[in-house]
């Protein structure tokens, strides 16, 4: 049933669909970025597709995706880029934005995917088609730094405005800390000090945040 949907899309927009890498029953259409809005509008308004529900917009950063199991970044695109596990060459296109669509009448599903190079992370907004895209695009912007061109209010949604960087990118360290107020130098007995503001591996007590702002006798 969903295959019929892909055929329909290919028929209506033959040059917009790059590939259809479906997996485990999920139908996926990789769409040219320039044609995204057009394709979305067609899928929402055509009665044969009727994809009126935008369930989610998610993104994937493929920086560390390649393993022996995946054999290079097979998820990234049709042509597998040369990828050297040793030297960690950059993967391009590095990002995916995935639009999980559904129809409440036809009961079928489709995922659209747009591929992005890390030097040009711009996607046209679909807020004009689905209102719910507003917050989902803000979420993807907040977490990955994808710029949705034409979004009415593209600001951070989960993180605070002063936050630096994009937390779900694979090169954002998991234990990096960005406190708005200086942290107390409180030892983590289980895991030891984290990579504090002074840089990775520097114990919190040796950073400018650690000692300078805290009474040294407070926790000794």
């Amino acid at each position, binding site marked *: 049933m969903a295959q019929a949907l892909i055929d329909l899309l290919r028929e209506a927009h033959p040059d917009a669909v790059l590939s259809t890498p479906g997996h485990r029953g999920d139908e996926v259409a990789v769409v040219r970025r320039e044609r995204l809005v057009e394709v979305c509008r067609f899928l929402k308004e055509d009665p044969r597709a009727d994809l009126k529900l935008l369930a989610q917009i998610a993104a994937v950063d493929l920086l560390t995706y390649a393993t022996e199991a995946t054999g290079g970044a097979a998820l990234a695109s049709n042509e597998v880029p040369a990828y050297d596990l040793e030297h960690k060459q950059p993967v391009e296109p590095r990002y995916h934005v995935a639009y999980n669509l559904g129809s409440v009448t036809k009961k079928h599903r489709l995922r659209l995917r747009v591929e992005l190079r890390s030097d040009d992370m711009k996607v046209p907004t679909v807020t004009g088609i689905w209102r719910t895209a507003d917050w989902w695009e803000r*979420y993807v912007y907040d977490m990955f730094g994808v710029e949705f061109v034409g979004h009415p209010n593209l600001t951070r949604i989960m993180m605070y405005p002063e936050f630096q960087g994009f937390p779900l990118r694979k090169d954002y360290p998991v234990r990096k800390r960005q406190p708005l107020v200086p942290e107390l130098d409180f030892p983590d007995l289980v895991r030891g000090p984290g990579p504090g503001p002074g840089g990775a591996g520097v114990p919190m007590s040796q950073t400018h945040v650690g000692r300078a702002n805290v009474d040294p006798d407070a926790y000794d």
Partner: protein
Amino acid sequence: MTEEAAHEHDPLALESELPSSPMTVNLGPSHPAMHGTVRLVLKLEGETIVETVPEIGFLHRGFSKSSENSTWTQVLPYTDRLNYVSPYLNNVAYVMGVEKLIGLQIPERAEYIRVLTGELSRITDHLTCIGAIGLELGAFTVFLYAIEARELLWDRIAELSGARVTVSWMRVGGCANDLPPGWGEKLLECLPRVMELTSEIDVLLTRNRIFVDRTRDIGVIGADEALDWGFTGPCLRACGVNYDVRKAHPYSVYPRMDFEVPLGSRGDTYDRYVLRLEEIRQSHKIMLQCLEQMPPGPIIVDDWRYALPPKKDVFSSIEGVMAHFKLIMEGIQVPPGEIYAYCEGANGELGFHIVSNGKGKPYTIQVRAPGFPILSALPRLIKGHAVADIIPIFDSINMIGGEVEQ
């Protein structure tokens, strides 16, 4: 002559309209009626809401980032904390996603247990929502009844998993352990009391003049618009759209269950309340069918690549020790791929967008929380209403801070 003096001489001045300018008021983040911590910046024209800017993220704990750095099994406790009033449903949605990625068929008994506990969670979720609406509209009795019923069910959940709220009880390939002996009978004993309390709530609220006046035609949204905003679950069905993932995309053993999907017609707060009440009855029906049809048998797959071997084998055979060690230390080796798995959560479609690169840890997990799109439509729902109407509207969408803010 000064202005005040003019008023003294003009008897009509008291009757004239007061000069007013828009006022900005903060509701939350820490407010008893803001379940979880969400902040609403309201722009008021007198008592009327002109504009609202919701601000979320106070409860953001980095669900996705934490999940990427834990094994597939270690993600389970994080999913409990997404929606802590229906943790089983979150567990089920997540493990269903992982099983879809693996292509794993789980034993029939485990499917029944999942549906049973899932519906149990749906009832507790709806009871919490209804109890809160009652409480915040002054019907404290309703809240006590709802909590009594919920406690009865949470006791059963505690007997099953050892925890009331954060259960972490599902496993990839099945469930952690079988139902304890006599548990089904205990559940059957307490269910009539739960349904009796639900009926009491029904009698107290559904035709209550005050309650109806406070909720009827408040927070109305049409079917097309609701869909445009990404509504699912009870909030969408209150508008009359027949979309329930259990019926539209049947999963697990739902096709064998005989139940109905209640629909509303007006899409207002009252419909959303009545719908939840009716869904409790339908869930009750499904639970009874589950208990009746549940076959004996294994509760988890007998495949040591995905499920922990039985303790007997771990202690007596080298293969068992190896499998146990590999699963704990490296995690389940999930084949590479990208899927979106979804099921009917208590508040709507609960989905997980999961990518695996064949390692023991998820490459990416992003959750489609049903409350997230619904909360984004809150400014639309409360626009033009009085400040006092925020509370019933906000209660009826049942936003759960844990899942919305991840």
